[in-house]
């Protein structure tokens, strides 16, 4: 009897010790409750205030675009336009930016360039990832150089090459053709992203495809591309955003009004907002061309990108994380 009781006491002791250890473990894991709550609160505060720094200018742009001239000059009006929402600002901005033509051009340029980047850079990236041959390291080094050096500084020979040797004046060819060859706006970066992604894929897939008699180009389009949706999404969003927001190249090559793209007109709109007399000496009507109209133009040019991003947002963030993990 006694022995049995002792044993059970020992057992109890052991259980108690286990519980104690467990609670210690819990404490280690989460800290005490108050500390925990405080920590959480602090984290939220910090994150939301930093997110606000990012969000603030967008909100500001939006309210500014709806103000009238009187609201703009009234310093007591900050967020909410008290003299009514002036939607007509958007109409003025649209007309001044020649929206009907330039927006179509913008979509055309961005669409074609993004499509070419996705197809060709995946193609080239696959070559870099899978096939090793003599000198492939050297070529990869050149790729890194092309990625690191800002190609905009070499624009002078490029400009002369395009306009004199190829005769591509006043067309979108100087912007679109290089994307087919894996260059263009940050082309090297996309090849690099695809290469990193493909290098992490298991080789068995392709081997199985080869055994079944699939050629390597066919393998790429039939086997590899369908399973690399995340990196395709990342590259297409990056390429799209960079092309949409770019000014440098369009300002050089797209000078005729017929082929100008939408955001190109924005600097002019902002200039009109601060000037009182335009280049030809005419007085600018301040009730039409002011900060509000300029902001409306900016909102209009952001809107397409924002809408597309909202649709793709979840997959985009996850997709970049996958590619990031492999770098």
């Amino acid at each position, binding site marked *: 009897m006694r022995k049995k009781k002792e044993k059970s006491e020992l057992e109890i002791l052991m259980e108690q010790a286990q519980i104690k250890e467990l609670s210690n473990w819990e404490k280690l894991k989460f800290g005490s409750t108050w500390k925990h709550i405080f920590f959480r609160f602090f*984290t*939220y505060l*910090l*994150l939301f205030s*930093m*997110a606000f*720094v*990012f*969000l*603030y*200018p967008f909100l*500001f742009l939006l309210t500014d675009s709806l103000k009238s001239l009187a609201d703009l000059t009234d310093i007591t009006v900050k967020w909410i336009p008290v003299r009514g929402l002036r939607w007509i600002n958007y109409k003025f901005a649209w007309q001044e930016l020649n929206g009907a033509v330039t927006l179509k051009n913008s979509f055309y340029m961005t669409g074609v360039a993004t499509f070419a980047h996705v197809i*060709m850079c995946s*193609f*080239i990236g696959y*070559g870099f990832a899978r*096939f*090793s*041959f003599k000198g492939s390291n050297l070529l990869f080094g050149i790729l890194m150089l092309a990625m*690191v*050096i*800002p*190609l*905009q*500084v*070499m*624009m*002078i*020979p490029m400009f002369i*090459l395009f306009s*004199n040797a190829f005769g591509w004046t006043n067309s979108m060819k100087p912007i679109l053709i*290089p994307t*087919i*060859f*894996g*260059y263009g706006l940050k*082309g090297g970066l996309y*090849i690099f992203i695809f290469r990193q992604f493909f290098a992490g894929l298991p080789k068995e897939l392709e081997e199985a495809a080869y055994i079944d008699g699939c050629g390597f180009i066919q393998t790429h389009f039939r086997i590899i591309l369908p399973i690399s949706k995340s990196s395709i999404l990342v590259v297409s969003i990056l390429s799209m955003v960079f092309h949409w*927001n770019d*000014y*440098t190249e369009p300002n050089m090559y797209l000078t005729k009004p017929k082929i100008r793209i939408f955001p190109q007109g*924005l*600097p002019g709109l*902002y200039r009109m907002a601060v000037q009182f007399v335009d280049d030809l000496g005419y007085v600018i009507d301040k009730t039409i061309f002011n900060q509000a109209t*300029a902001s409306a133009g*900016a909102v209009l*040019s*952001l809107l397409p*990108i*924002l809408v597309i991003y909202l649709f793709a*947002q*979840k997959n*985009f*963030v996850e997709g*970049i*994380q996958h*590619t*990031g*993990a492999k*770098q």
Partner: protein
Amino acid sequence: MRTVNFKRRQAIQGLILISPWIIGTILFFLYPAYETIALSVSELDSIKGLQKHYLGFNYYKNILFESIAYMPMYTRVFKEMLIRTPLVVVFSLFIAILLNLDIKGRGVLRSLFVLPFLLGSGFIMQQIMNQGLQDEMGATAMGTDTTSVGRGTILIPREVLWYLGPQVSNLVTQFLSRITEVLWKCPVPIILFLGGLQSISGSLYESAKVDGATQWEMFWKITLPMIGEIILVAIIYTLIDMFSESTNQVMSVIHSTAFRSTRFEFAAALACVYIAIILILIAIIFGIAALIGRSKK
């Protein structure tokens, strides 16, 4: 014999895949690079077909030793870059760690932090920043010179600034504008770091906890070494981003020298000096990274 065949076939296939890029490299990278270097040491006779004759290193001499305009510009831009890059990397690592915590609303916060990327480094972003500043400071009411303050958009109500007086508020705004600028560069590094943090396996932290390590120790002993490579990638990305953005002063000077005052040769020399400094800087960073990597092993 078979393996040799296989290897050769692989090489041919690889070359076929890469061939568009090789053509592109010759046309859009090597040729312009060669022409830029050639242009920087010669004088143009006619712009058509870039006919030129050799002149020597006059432009370089002018940039590096004679002119007082250009070297200070380079040092200013690079100093700014060297201050900002570490700040961007540290900030984004910090934010990424916070975003990686197991909290509610994480998804919303994550997509909020990617938002500035959509503006690119383009014209709208600049405008937004300037405009926010003007309103915040209540520039007209204060009578302060807004151009000397720099850009900034945060968060202090102008009523508070009125009480502080111009000097203090200038200081505060400068500090805040620096932080804002840094924060706006963060999105892509944040995403890179998030990916890296998620690839660290949780069992490492658990075993460290069992051994009684604190959060602080775990950060230095586990987190940092595990994402070392990503830190390197983030640094390089941030640097490239700042080098090539069109608001960069060197870039705009090169652009205006070439296309406004049509001194193509001089602009080419400016660009060559710029690229040389960039390459040296990146080589130094890779060197340091290699040294750190070796000392670990």
